[in-house]
């Protein structure tokens, strides 16, 4: 590492001799050191209940704990809640809380903090992001300091999964009352807030009173390096030890020289949305024709350099859809043309399609690829390339025949699709499709506490979605986490979370 204070010549000389890969560390976990994470964007605020930006959540989840958490495969594990049980026809959830936990300012943690947190999230004035996910909680009871009882207005097991989301981070009741949440972060997590220099870096240090195993790292610094290629350069210089990248080209640049790249399929999915409420697409045959005419692997290869995995609707590892479980697992022009004929549209149709530019690299390439493929069945796409603000407005209003979209995935399929494909869902307009069968299946999934039975229900939902082709699911991209050889014990996750930095060490 280049240390400041040494002359330029000396610095260069040291760099030349110390460049690239260092010796591998010993087998025992080394304690100490500050891990620097390089990212292109800065956190935007300190209040976890309002955090929507990905990098903000990534940082705040080091400071705060949630009631439940995820393991590597996004199965639920205990965090501040050690046990949760359903009763009362699944309309009551009883949470047993962990004892002996303290906030970073020394205040002991109890059920009162959970109650205050949930109340804050449910309060419309807070404009909390997670509100709609836990809106079914009608009452929060705290019979004693270590127990919380949630009364739901209707049974929904996804409420518990929703509480693994950092947007439901548990705050201290004292802070909420004092109104200091967005100024002085105070959580129960493994790292505590030291200093935020906006647009430059966020510094965290180890929490000495953390309830879990002591984190090996002394601290984490999230550094802002606006250009992805500069992030790679920073890794190569050793001044940054972990880089978070989204551009496959930058990841390619990282391949030269001693760096380790972790590619994890994301939860976010690239999809070609069809608006089934539009006359041209009302007919199921037309939609199936389109679904069969698209070669998803080719879209992935041409638009994203093959950096990703073809996917079905559900992307969470615990509930993963089988991408081959659809009418046309691979491109089938014969079938597609047959569907078009059944629909009486061999003459062809024209669709107005929108795509967003500037937010992520592959959108327009995907649209191009799809456009070319659909020509083969006489479907013409009139493409409008829109800047992000304009695209969002059109998308929300469902003002399109078709759209290329990159939608957020969630660990729980209910939170992921409940709002889209049920008749009462808040985004049903955008999904433009629902059916009594789907409504019934989603309701089942909501109220089934047994994990194995739930997986079976969502498999059915996934099949139902593919059979009716309201959308054509294409692929998920990769999250790239690039680490130098000094980093050990880092576990990447498909939701991009860095939560396992609490187990990472610097050798």
């Amino acid at each position, binding site marked *: 590492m280049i240390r400041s204070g040494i002359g330029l010549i000396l610095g260069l000389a040291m760099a030349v001799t110390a460049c690239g890969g260092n010796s591998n560390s010993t087998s025992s976990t080394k304690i100490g050191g500050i891990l620097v994470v390089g990212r292109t964007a800065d956190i935007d605020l300190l209040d976890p209940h309002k955090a929507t930006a990905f990098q903000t959540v990534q940082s705040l989840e080091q400071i705060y704990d949630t009631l439940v958490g995820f393991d590597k495969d996004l199965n639920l594990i205990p965090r501040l809640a050690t046990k949760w049980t359903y009763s009362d026809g699944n309309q009551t959830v009883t949470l047993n809380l962990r004892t002996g936990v303290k906030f970073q300012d020394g205040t002991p943690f109890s059920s009162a903090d959970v109650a205050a947190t949930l109340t804050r999230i449910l309060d419309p004035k807070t404009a909390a992001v997670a509100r709609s996910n836990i809106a079914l909680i009608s009452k929060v009871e705290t019979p004693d300091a270590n127990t919380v009882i949630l009364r739901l207005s209707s049974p929904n097991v996804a409420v518990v999964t929703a509480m693994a989301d950092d947007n439901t981070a548990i705050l201290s009741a004292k802070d909420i009352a004092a109104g200091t949440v967005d100024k002085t972060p105070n959580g129960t997590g493994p790292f505590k807030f030291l200093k935020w220099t906006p647009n430059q870096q966020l510094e965290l240090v180890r929490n000495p009173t953390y309830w879990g195993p002591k984190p090996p790292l002394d601290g984490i610094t999230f550094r802002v390096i606006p250009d*992805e*290629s500069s992030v*790679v350069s920073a890794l190569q210089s050793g001044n940054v030890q972990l880089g978070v990248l989204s*551009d496959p*080209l*930058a990841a*390619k*640049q990282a*391949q*030269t020289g001693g760096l380790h790249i972790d590619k994890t399929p994301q939860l976010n999915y690239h999809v070609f949305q069809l608006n089934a409420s539009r006359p041209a697409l009302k007919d199921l045959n037309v939609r199936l024709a389109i679904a069969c005419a698209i070669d998803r692997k080719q879209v992935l*290869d*041409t638009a994203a*350099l093959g950096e990703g995995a073809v996917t079905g609707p559900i992307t969470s590892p615990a509930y993963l859809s089988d991408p081959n479980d659809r009418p046309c697992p691979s491109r089938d022009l014969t079938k597609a043309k047959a569907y078009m004929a059944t629909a009486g549209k061999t003459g062809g149709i024209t669709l107005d399609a929108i795509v967003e*530019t*500037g937010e992520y690299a592959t959108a*327009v*390439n995907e649209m*191009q690829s799809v456009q070319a493929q659909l020509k083969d069945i006489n479907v013409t796409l009139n493409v409008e*390339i*829109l*800047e992000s603000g*304009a695209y969002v407005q059109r998308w929300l209003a469902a003002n399109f025949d078709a759209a290329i979209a990159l939608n957020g995935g969630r660990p729980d399929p209910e939170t992921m699709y409940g709002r889209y494909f049920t008749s009462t869902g808040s985004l049903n307009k955008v999904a433009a499709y629902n059916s009594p069968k789907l409504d019934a299946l989603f309701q089942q999934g909501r109220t089934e506490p047994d994990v194995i039975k739930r997986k079976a229900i969502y498999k059915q939902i996934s099949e139902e979605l593919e059979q009716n082709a309201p959308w054509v699911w294409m692929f998920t991209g990769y999250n790239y986490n690039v680490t130098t050889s000094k980093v050990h014990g880092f576990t990447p996750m498909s939701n991009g979370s860095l939560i396992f930095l609490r187990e990472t060490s610097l050798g």
Partner: protein
Amino acid sequence: MSEVGVAIRLPSAATAPTRGPWWRRLLASRSGTVGAALTGVVILAALAALAGLVPHDPIVQHPLDRLLNPSWTYLLGTDQFGRDTLARCMAGAAASLQVSLLAVGLATVVGTTIGVIAGWYGGWIDIIAMRLTDIFFAFPAILLALTVIAALGRGWFNVAIAIAIVYTPIFVRMARAPVLSLREAQYVLAGRLLGFSVPRLLLRHVLPNISSIVIVQITLALSWAILTESSLSFLGLGQPPPAPSLGQMVSEAKSLAVVAPWTLFAPALVIVIAVVGLNLLGDGLRDALDPTQGR
């Protein structure tokens, strides 16, 4: 980004010919010849691209041929999608020139008109015009372009508008100055006494006399427009893909600098050739069109 357009005039070389048609004078000066040649090459490449005379289709991908070094099939190699770099450079040159010509054209027409009117009538019109140009000048150029694009959205037309907005004040200033002195020139005064209408005076007597300045400024503005378009692309606000533009190609290729240098150097070289060529052409034109104005 430095203002290319308001460069101080170079002295006319003592040996610049003062006889013969302008183009002969242009070609007699070294900078004029080189400038014309370089600019000509870029224009030819662009025209060829527009006519479809490219070795491969600039947009078509050849996934099996990714990131190849230059070869006989792909004279400048291929990019990360397997697209031919040479074809893309040619198409990119066409796109960049298109944007620049539109932008500078707009700026010239609007700016010169305002400048001439302000210079001619003076008084309040002049004061307001000067104040407005001051305002635009004080606004950092690239940030103004950025804001306009963010407001209008991407697309080559909007990029052109953004660049035009930034450049118009320069034409206003530049057209106004000579008009101030021309207004008092003998033959103009004579024309006014004779009762010639203002439009006639402006079109027949004033404009031709400032045309040399305007033409030179156009070439400099074009070179600046090409650079700005590439900067905007780098910031992610230029023309959206897949249509190639030089700035976008350079921006995408910078992570590939070590892995596949050709993808970076080729479009960068085209930009350099165009900018250098236009600047030299401007210098040459300045000497050729108005040798008496050299100092």
